[in-house]
């Protein structure tokens, strides 16, 4: 797949169809990959594809906008691809400005433990959809997991009493150092000014106190409702190991149950949190 990817990247850059290919290259630490920005065909051999291509590169289309005159070609796992589709739906990127190179994905492995990622065990979509190019053989892809597999980790939390849940999250958020890595890697966190940084008035205390940490975690989870594509980057990058996916998974579950909606799966489906109809049953908006 790496050879095919490099070949495609060379073609896109040589023909001028794309001015940059955002993909994965080898990192300096053994066995890891790092995002790379390939702008000439001669550099295409820096691209790699393996089971450590963890980053969701869609973040470079939204909050960390890559500046270029031509089209951006971007390497995307099926889960990351959903983020790109969602960004198109939210008018953050024009679909015609991006060439999506979808990768048939058998799952990624944790950098430290070498074990398959939890999200990959629960993956329903190993073959990319809505992309411009496909690398890999769709026939070789693993079978989709049960649709509820991604919510198994929630069961323990949902079985807790409110007091137990409070104790659980108090302990987890006490570790938060407010580095905002979760926010910065999230393709959906593209606000130019985050409410966490507002000072006049200050909505969320910047101190690493329970009040500040809780408010930050809660508002981020709520903002992810109907938008989180379950790429799991927030939890992966958290340097102190807060299980942030439990929060976003709960939001995804609510959205699925109430609206039958999966963010970034269908470019034409109206996003539940961004649309309303005059005949909606709720009357607060009228």
């Amino acid at each position, binding site marked *: 797949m790496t050879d095919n990817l490099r070949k495609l990247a060379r073609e896109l850059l040589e023909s001028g169809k794309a001015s940059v290919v955002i993909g994965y290259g080898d*990192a*300096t*630490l*053994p066995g*890891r*990959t*790092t*995002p*790379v*920005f390939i702008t000439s065909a001669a550099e295409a051999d820096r691209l790699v594809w393996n089971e450590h291509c963890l*980053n969701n590169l869609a*973040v*470079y289309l939204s*909050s*960390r906008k*890559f500046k270029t005159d031509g089209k951006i070609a971007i390497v995307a796992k099926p889960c990351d691809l959903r983020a790109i589709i969602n960004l198109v739906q939210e008018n953050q990127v024009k679909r015609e400005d991006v060439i999506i190179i979808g990768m048939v994905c058998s799952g990624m492995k944790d950098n430290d433990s070498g074990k398959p990622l939890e999200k990959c065990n629960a993956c329903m979509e190993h073959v990319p959809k809505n992309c411009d190019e496909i690398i890999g053989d769709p026939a070789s892809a693993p079978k989709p997991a049960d649709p509820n597999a991604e919510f198994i980790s929630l069961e323990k939390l949902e079985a807790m009493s409110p007091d137990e849940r409070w104790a659980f999250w108090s302990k987890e958020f006490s*570790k938060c*150092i*407010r*580095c*905002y*890595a979760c*926010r*910065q*890697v999230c393709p959906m966190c593209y606000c130019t000014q985050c409410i966490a*940084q507002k*000072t006049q008035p*200050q909505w969320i*205390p*910047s*101190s*690493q*106190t329970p009040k500040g940490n809780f408010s930050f975690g809660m508002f981020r989870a709520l903002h992810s409702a109907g938008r989180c594509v379950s790429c799991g*980057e927030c939890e*992966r*990058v958290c*340097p*102190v*190991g807060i299980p942030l996916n439990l929060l976003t998974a709960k939001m995804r579950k609510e959205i699925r149950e109430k609206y039958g909606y999966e963010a970034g799966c269908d470019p034409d489906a109206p996003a539940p949190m961004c649309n309303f109809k005059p005949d909606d049953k709720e009357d607060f908006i009228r």
Partner: protein
Amino acid sequence: MKKVDKNKLGELMQAVLDAGKELIAPVRQGDHTAYARIKKPGDAALDILLTRMPLKEFFLPKTECLLKYTNLEGGGVEVSDPDPLNQERVVFGARPCDASSLPIMDKVFTWDYNDSLYLARRDKTTIVSIACESPAASCRCESVGISPSAKDGSDVLLTPIGDAYTVDAVTEKGEKLVALWGSKLSDASDADAAKAAAFKPALPGHQTDTASLRGKLKAKFETPAWAEQTMKCVGCGACAYLCPTCHCFDIVDEKSGCGGERRRNWDACAFSTFTLHGSGHNPRAEQQHRYRQRVMHKFDYYPEKFGPVACVGCGRCLSACPVGMDIFEIIEKVTADE
């Protein structure tokens, strides 16, 4: 020089607790690792090569109160200062890189102002470091002139010699602690001392000669290589907050009811708001400028003012960076001849 059996470290920690001192050691918190206060030696996880969090928060807490204020009925404000730390503490099982960060921080907190809260914590704390037997691929201490058995910043250094450690009291504070341990330690032979002196585990990761490269940084301030090398940086504060020497902070007043606290919180130069002016202008407009500041501060501005570089090569920023930034690779790339 003294020595202690490897399986007797628990007794040394218990002696610290029995003497009424607070004990801080590396611990596991689920999958997370950090230094933490412990109540029994069994809670220490001395097998951890390097905790995810550095020792820094015990000297410069993530958040600390600088003063409390209360608005009084009928006008006026009552202000009170926090009490400096007044409890003896021992950090047991620090790594030489983490210990080396403390003299670097000291220079900042005593330069134009003696920071009493910081200095009280330093004064009350004795650092016992354990030299590293199996450094990791991310370890970069030799890139900055430190070694897996460096003594700088430690009060006592334990160096592995087979089934035992030599116990080396580096400072006066360290001598007091060794005296407290008394007969729990035995005398090291000349052969033991020679073994300890020869202790030099190989670092598996690539080491960068920052001593010779850092002199080139100033001339490379405007090189386009900064933009190329920092393009992938997403602008979070993980590198700064996990760094044992990053010491930038923000001061905020946070209200609660009729009063509040003035707090000092960690801050990071990678944040876009770090240098954002009230006018809306930002002198470090792009991420490349912010990352360049990180490199320049550590390898140019700080050494120019204080001597050593402000990096101990612990490698936390390499292993925890969400996008795999490697500060040493970046130094090599931006200082390379065009």
